[in-house]
């Protein structure tokens, strides 16, 4: 298949179209607006539904309606918009209908800026919408990987009737890379049997709700959601390993942080440092078992993120204190360079691992100096 140069946001949009996207509702917000703009002409030319909503609040509820109506549906947004969508996501999870969200993360909190970041990890993976639910969150690291992820996530969310989030960052949204686009899937012709698509006199009526006034009924629903989650944990773990076979310690990073870390790891290997990279692609479900197994044989984990250490907590939890964990991150939309990470890798290799205190505190002390000197 031939490769073409595509901008990340537009590639996300086209991948969804080829996956059979039937309805898209979105709102302008940098750095993902190109996805909205692309679909504003692409979907109508295919006779599918597109609408720019009045806000992210409107968009997520339109997606909620379309999902209940049985359509393959998606929205895209960035961090402040994701916050607005949390109510809708909780309702969608509680109603058990499938939908896809693409979050192109930017610097925050608050209005922040439009530069790339990974500060939505906690809100998407550990919380956000109220109640007991877990969305599937996949974090690709290149435009090609993002295309592949978006293309397959629609089938995944329909299999489990759950929420699938593709979490990238502003750099992936904005940059251009040579990619191969997948084949166009046919749009569904038959509505799911559970959907609110009007009975047409052919079936019993469907009611889709997230209300269970009787706590016992709600608990039954919660139990069902948790059992589905356990299935997802069993089946949907995704990660990539680089130079891990003979690694003495591992860098752990997802998305663009993982990609930058890979450059650092390659350079480190060229210097003879026995380091590898473990790159989670599914951050929810988190590859806990893989981290735990690695903790049996490695000297330490070095977590690299574009936030204040959010996946760091998951690595600490999963490694269960077996080995020391060190952290390096940049915040606010600042992207780390390979040489910063290489510097830290060299230090770990030369000076060894610290055990007292929390890795975040050690890193913050370091970062103060770095920020002053830059």
């Amino acid at each position, binding site marked *: 298949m031939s490769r073409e140069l595509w901008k990340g946001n537009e590639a996300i949009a086209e991948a969804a179209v080829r996956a059979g996207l*039937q*309805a898209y*509702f979105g709102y302008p917000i940098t750095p993902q607006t190109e996805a909205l703009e692309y679909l504003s002409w692409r979907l109508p030319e295919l006779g599918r*539904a597109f*609408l720019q*909503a*009045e*806000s992210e*609040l*409107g*968009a997520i*509820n*339109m*997606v*909620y*309606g*379309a*999902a*209940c*109506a*049985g*359509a393959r*549906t998606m929205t895209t947004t960035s961090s402040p918009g994701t916050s607005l969508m949390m*109510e*809708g996501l909780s*309702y969608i999870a509680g*109603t058990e209908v499938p939908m896809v969200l693409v979050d192109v993360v930017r610097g925050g909190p608050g209005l922040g800026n439009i530069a790339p970041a990974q500060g939505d990890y906690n809100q998407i993976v550990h919380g956000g919408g109220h109640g007991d639910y877990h969305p599937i969150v996949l974090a690709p690291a290149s435009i090609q990987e993002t295309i592949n992820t978006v293309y397959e996530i629609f089938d995944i969310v329909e299999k489990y009737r759950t929420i699938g989030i593709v979490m990238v960052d502003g750099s992936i949204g904005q940059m251009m890379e040579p990619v191969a686009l997948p084949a166009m899937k046919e749009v569904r012709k038959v509505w799911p049997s559970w959907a*609110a*698509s*009007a*009975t*047409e*006199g052919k079936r019993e*009526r*469907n*009611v*889709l*709700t*997230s*209300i269970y006034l009787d706590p016992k009924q709600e608990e039954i629903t919660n139990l069902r959601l948790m059992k589905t989650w356990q299935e997802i944990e069993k089946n949907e773990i995704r990660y990539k390993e680089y130079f891990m076979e003979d690694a003495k310690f591992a860098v752990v990073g997802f998305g663009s942080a993982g990609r930058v870390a890979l450059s650092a790891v390659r350079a480190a290997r060229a210097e003879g440092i026995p380091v590898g990279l473990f790159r989670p692609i599914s951050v929810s479900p988190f590859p806990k078992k893989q981290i735990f197994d690695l903790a049996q044989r490695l000297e330490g984990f070095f977590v690299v993120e574009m936030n204040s250490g959010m996946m760091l907590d998951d690595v600490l939890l999963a490694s269960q204190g077996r080995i020391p964990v060190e952290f390096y991150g940049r915040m606010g939309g600042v992207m780390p360079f390979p040489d910063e990470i290489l510097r830290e890798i060299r230090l770990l290799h030369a000076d060894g691992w610290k055990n007292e205190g929390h890795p975040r505190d050690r890193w913050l002390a370091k970062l103060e100096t770095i920020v002053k000197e830059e």
Partner: protein
Amino acid sequence: MTTMNVEDMQVIYQHPTSLLDIHTHYCPGCTHGVAHRLVAEVIDEMNLRDQCIGVASVGCSVFAYNYFDFDFIQSPHGRAPAMATGVKRVHPGKIVLTYQGDGDMISIGTGEITHAAARGENITVIFINNANYGMTGGQMAPTTLPGQKTTSSPKGRDVEQAGYPIRASEMLATLDGAGYIARRSLHDPKNIRLAKKAIRTAFEAQVRGLGFSMVELLSTCPTNWHLAPAAAGKWLEENMLPYFPLGDYKVHTALKDLKF
């Protein structure tokens, strides 16, 4: 009293088919029940049941989906017009309606309803205005009248501090996308009959693709107004009608000659 043999008689009025034959949770005398019945009657008469998808909102009518015999979905507070938009864009040939109260539609949901109307979304909104938040125990709503006592305006709505009520029908009628907006009342038999005609016109607007349609129904809330049902009707007539005048605020030309 002589008992009559109904087998030999003509049925003048009966329980509509689109309304499920079950006891509702609404308070005795609450006109939600009247509104439900009228909507079901219109859907029966227009033979729309198999094409209908309803969107329930959050308020006393949160369980509306238990009472209508067609597909229904539940929306978060205020978001029903957005959910209805999602449904209608996916199923443009189906009949999509929302059923919303005043707190839901014109407080938290102001953005969603305004834009659905502005877009000319081909949905029908049944808007129940009873001047308070009923489900949560009678708090002040955007439609609470000046001086009206509620649990969150115990001394009466003070316009200096809490401002003035919103007249949703008038406001939404300024939008070009609106095809039919009318305000009626459910406080007595004559007005209930007129309300039904308006509801019929609203659904006709949707069937004919004439844009956004809404019927605002002034309704009683006996429990939170602390009045018996008939007295609540009187209170509505004396207090709400002057502030929320009945009338047709937007009528698409194609609807002007329809008579029901």
